[in-house]
């Protein structure tokens, strides 16, 4: 299968000396929806903007749709659609005017009203951009990315700031796009979004890919089981947690304790026994299916979002 995005040994150093990207490799298949996940400052935006031709890399090889930015910039631009992390468009233009302008830049483009309907902005087509809500502006940005009928879509945190309903609508837009055999590269802070939309994700930290694969596989490989989060009246000794039946990946953080268990039915009685023996009172307990967040915590000991 051919690669929509092919990146090797990518480096970017921002002046004076911020190594935002340090040796990142990425191979995104055509027709795939690929997610970049990582904490603030991990280098996601820098990476995606290099791929969009907006930032020049300090080192590394980048191919987008089989082409090179150095030689084929115009051809690449004709075939990609992008949203920036923060989008401002001309305040005093209407939504339809903005889209018609963007549309005019592309050889083959979609009808403005069709795109507006797709992002549910039809009623706002004649409103000035600065009269829209934050979420509506974000959807205009997505519409601008779609209007050129791209083969490859770059979305930098497309759903940040959207209400749950708009988020789901946008998920549908992305799913539709993918269903037509096209490629998406997106960044997000929402784990449910990544798990639901992305065929594969790369977890990025300090400018490097630290884990790569299908969300399910990553979770199974790095976390597995069921995650328990405990709040206790005093810190638990880590040995007590390790002694819990089927427990793995134990971690104590003050009066918070975390562990992953294979078998919840066996683990809970054993946990209560351990705590009872130590005279510790359990104040709260949560269980959840592990997410990519847990994968990140397992890999780095930090949370994706603080």
């Amino acid at each position, binding site marked *: 299968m051919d690669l929509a995005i092919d990146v090797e040994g990518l480096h970017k150093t921002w002046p004076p000396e911020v190594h935002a990207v340090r040796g990142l490799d990425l191979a995104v298949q055509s027709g795939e929806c690929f997610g970049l996940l990582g904490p603030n400052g991990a280098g996601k935006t820098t990476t995606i903007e290099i791929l969009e031709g*907006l930032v020049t890399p300090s080192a590394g090889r980048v191919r987008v749709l089989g082409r090179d930015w150095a030689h084929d910039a115009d051809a690449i631009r*004709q075939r990609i659609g992008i949203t920036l992390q923060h989008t401002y468009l*001309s305040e*005093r*233009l209407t939504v339809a005017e903005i889209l018609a302008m963007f549309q005019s830049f592309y050889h083959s483009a979609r009808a403005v009203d069709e795109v507006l309907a797709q992002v549910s902005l039809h009623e706002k087509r004649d409103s000035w951009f600065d009269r829209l809500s934050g979420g509506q502006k974000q959807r205009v940005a997505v519409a601008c990315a779609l209007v050129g009928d791209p083969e490859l879509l770059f979305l930098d945190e497309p759903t940040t700031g959207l209400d749950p309903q708009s988020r789901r609508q946008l998920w549908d837009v992305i799913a539709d796009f993918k269903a037509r055999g096209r490629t998406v590269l997106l960044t997000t802070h929402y784990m449910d979004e990544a798990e639901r939309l992305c065929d594969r994700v790369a977890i990025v930290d300090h400018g490097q890919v630290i884990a790569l694969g299908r969300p399910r596989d990553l979770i199974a490989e790095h976390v597995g089981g069921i995650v328990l989060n405990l709040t206790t009246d005093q810190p638990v000794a880590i040995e007590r947690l390790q002694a819990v039946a089927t427990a793995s990946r134990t971690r104590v953080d003050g009066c918070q304790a975390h562990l992953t268990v294979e078998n919840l039915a066996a683990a809970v009685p054993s946990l209560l026994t351990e705590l009872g023996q130590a005279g510790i009172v359990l104040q709260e307990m949560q269980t959840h299916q592990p997410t990519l967040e847990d994968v990140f915590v397992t890999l780095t000991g930090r949370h994706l979002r603080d």
Partner: protein
Amino acid sequence: MALRDSPLWHLTMARLRSWLREPEVLFWSFGFPILLTIALGVAFRNRPPEAVTVLVEAGSGAESVAKALANDKQLTVLTVDHREAARQLRAGLAALSVDPGPPLTVRHDPTRPEARLAKLLVDNAIERSQGRRDVAAIANQTVDEPGARYVDFLVPGLIGMNLMQSGMWGVGYAIVEMRSKRLLRRMIATPMRKSDFLLSFLIMRLVFLLVELPVVLGTARLLFDVRIQGSLVAFVAVAVAGALAFVGLGLLVASRAKTTQAASGLMNLVQMPMFVGSGVFFSIKNFPEVAQPVLRLLPLTALNDGLRAVQNEGADLLGVLPQLAVLGGIGVVTLVLAVRIFRWD
């Protein structure tokens, strides 16, 4: 491709719409120059020459002298005592004082032009009151020709100033704002041709001219009977060349600035010398001789000179060639430079 589907059309319309939908901008573009024309045109309209104040020293005969002088409308006559007259003369409050005598004596300082004028008028008035007959009949005609009044001088200056201001702000500020809000960056991520984008600003300015010239000239014509004596083609040509020069300067100022504050500072720095030294409100002939060749190279000076030459001196295209050359040269050089160093993000 149909014109209305072309990127250049859409970019230009975007510029025009953003501009027309900003009421403040509209005021500064049109309302302000019109108000200024009216205010200054009224304030400096040609008035009858001011009367000259002369004094008559109290004493016998003062009354008949004062009466004789009062016949001349160009004289304001005050009767005061001898000491007060001396004080007012010293203080320059009056041009001359008459001591009714005998002998009738006129005191004045002949180095002051006003005093010399007063002397002539006073001599004339007194001689006439004592029976002198005019020996020659001289017909009198006052000159108040359109083209020679202050308002005729002012209107081209205001048009020039407005072209500078709205050109530099309309282009420079708009671009820097687009850059600081990262809209430029969004635009160049599309296949848009950069030349189309920059060209749309030039076209926008020409459309602006199309509206501004009739509005300002129409107002001046209606209220003050200001007329273009020379060729209209030449007038428009100078204005277009001026618009080009200021689009270039605006682009140059905006080519690298990252914040609107930085751009505003730069813009003021560039405009200030021209506000003062380009003869908007008064002729640059008031500046020292040596400064004038330099002042004439300022784009606003060339623009004002060119507009005035056509409007007031009846110049044609050939007559404003030097100004067209200066403006065109500045326009081309600044545009080329701006495009070379332009920063898109």
